[in-house]
């Protein structure tokens, strides 16, 4: 079979917004060849999220992850410097660090005992002297392979398997959304112990879209919303109260601007809703301190619901609680989600308890909302098998009202997105997804160009 050429990939995205039209071909969700290109050029061809600095706080700490299909380890050396490396012995490729997080001054390969220190340096080859090695071998770099790009933006760690733009350029104006998360704790963010991993039978881009999709909320989650409403009315001491019970931004009864969307360069997006400060918000007991430190307007933005996607694999959802997600594509129709409760360091025990309880009910695959999303993704994946009318009609809401640049809500943050869409409760913008697919095409084009 002839390998896919750039023109065929490009034709999967029908981007003619000036004519009022944007669509994605279903093949982008189902085709193995497209998936292979995505792995190579989207995930292994530019910045991806690796983890949080707070996961590796001490000298010689490490965390393991994957970048596309490549095992990667982030290590802190004895001097406290962070580095990201391919987690593979340079001898024969065996994994060097074996746990999700751990600590090791020296990593001895379990296969042939080559050893590496926490700065990736090959410090010993077993029986080097007796190995009758050639000068060419001795001159070859045996250190762990360092990722060509690695950056720490306010505790969020990113890496790339190819030389690429600076992290500042990659994050662009979307950095303001990471700032809103990072600024919630005086000492930054941490992960609540307990990581939850699940899979779903659908393409990774279904998760990418769903996070930014206000349109599904009342359709896919009525059981959760009705339960929250029941709990609000019913004052049982051990029922978890949720912001969704206090908030009506999603209700069709609510008038005026209730939230909106921003689309950024490089494929990052946010979908947000106004959430009034109330005692169901975990930040409530520090509301005044946060306002004193960051100003009332930024504090209010911290309280607002924000579903942030940093393309291609990181999402932070802050609504009833706060979740950090890492999206890991497994196959065209299978995706793995690594999820954490993310929280400001130093919040009160009561705030933390409320955050955890809301998290479990809403976000867990054992909870009452996320499974209703992921089963929908599997349904979509089934439907996307249809080639006879290949164009997906889910990129059209808001086409006539989206504006370029900032709106009044972005101005408060001194943030200038590419596009803004202040929304009433029922607009449910879909134009923000366009950014995903433009970035997607850009990475694949650059990658195909690079590998010519």
């Amino acid at each position: 079979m002839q390998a896919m050429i750039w023109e065929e990939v490009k034709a999967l995205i029908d981007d003619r917004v000036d004519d009022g039209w944007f669509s994605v071909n279903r093949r982008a969700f189902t085709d193995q060849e497209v998936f292979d290109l995505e792995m190579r050029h989207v995930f292994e061809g530019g910045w991806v999220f690796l983890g949080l600095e707070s996961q590796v706080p001490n000298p010689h700490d490490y965390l393991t992850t994957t970048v596309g299909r490549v095992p990667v380890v982030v290590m802190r050396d004895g001097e406290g410097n962070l580095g990201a490396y391919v987690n593979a012995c340079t001898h024969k490729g065996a994994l060097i660090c074996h746990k999700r997080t751990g600590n090791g001054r020296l990593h001895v390969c379990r296969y042939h005992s080559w050893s590496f220190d926490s700065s990736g340096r090959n410090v010993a080859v077993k029986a080097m002297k007796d190995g009758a090695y050639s000068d060419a071998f001795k001159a070859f770099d045996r250190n762990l392979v360092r990722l060509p790009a690695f950056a720490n933006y306010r505790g969020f760690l990113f890496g790339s398997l190819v030389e690429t733009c600076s992290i500042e350029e990659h994050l662009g104006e979307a950095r303001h959304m990471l700032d809103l998360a990072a600024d919630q704790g005086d000492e930054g963010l941490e992960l609540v112990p307990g990581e939850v991993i699940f899979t779903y039978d659908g393409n990774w881009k279904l998760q990418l879209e769903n996070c930014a999709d206000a349109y599904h909320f009342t359709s896919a989650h009525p059981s959760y919303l009705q339960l929250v409403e029941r709990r609000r009315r019913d004052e049982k001491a051990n029922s978890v109260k949720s912001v969704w019970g206090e908030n009506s931004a999603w209700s069709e009864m609510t008038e005026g601007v209730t939230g909106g969307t921003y689309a950024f360069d490089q494929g990052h997006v946010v979908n947000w809703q106004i959430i009034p400060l109330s005692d169901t918000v975990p930040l409530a007991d520090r509301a005044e301190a946060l306002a004193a430190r960051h100003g009332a307007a930024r504090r209010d933005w911290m309280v607002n619901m924000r579903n942030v996607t940093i393309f291609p694999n990181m999402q932070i959802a802050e609504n009833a609680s706060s979740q950090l997600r890492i999206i890991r594509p497994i196959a065209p129709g299978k995706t793995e989600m690594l999820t954490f409760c993310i929280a400001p360091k130093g919040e009160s025990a009561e705030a933390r308890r409320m955050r955890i309880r809301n998290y479990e009910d809403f976000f867990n695959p054992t909870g009452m909302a996320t499974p209703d999303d992921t089963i929908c993704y599997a349904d979509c994946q089934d439907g996307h098998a249809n080639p006879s009318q290949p164009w997906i009609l889910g990129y059209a809401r808001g086409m006539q009202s989206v504006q370029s640049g900032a709106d009044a809500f972005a101005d408060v943050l001194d943030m200038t997105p590419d596009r803004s869409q202040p929304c009433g409760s029922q607009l449910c913008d879909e134009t923000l997804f366009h950014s995903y697919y433009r970035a997607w095409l850009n990475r694949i084009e650059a990658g195909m160009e690079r590998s010519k």
Partner: protein
Amino acid sequence: MITRAEAEELIARESLSLDRRDWDAWLDLFVEDCSYWMPAWRDEENPTEDPETELSLIWYKGKHNLADRVWRVKSGLSVASVPLMRTSHHVSNLLIEGEDRVAASFAVHVHNAKRRADHVFFGRYEYRLVREGDGLRIAEKKILLMNDYIPAVADFYML
């Protein structure tokens, strides 16, 4: 003191109630202020231990929270619960520990008829049982799920 025969009967009745989708009978087995806890895992080897400061997969105090979960799967409003999975609970190696505690191994076979797929959740149950009215009731149930790599959904009736 509880006897092994009593504990076995209660836990077998719980399995049967779940597999028959007789949710009301299942709820009747719990005391009002029961706790129901499925820890998450901190790392490869250690489950979380403190639900106040660490994440759990499920943590509830009070039977009304379990009743909420039952309401949700019966409501017809949950995408993930229509159609319901078929389940078969298998509980074995039951031992009485101390005055009122019971430990047992479980394997729950789950069949997803819509997607024509099977899955097995397995791990350990730990109960604290109390006498209430005419018989034994569940005061605490802890589910230590060993294979927490979850295929999209794991609801209470599959565990």
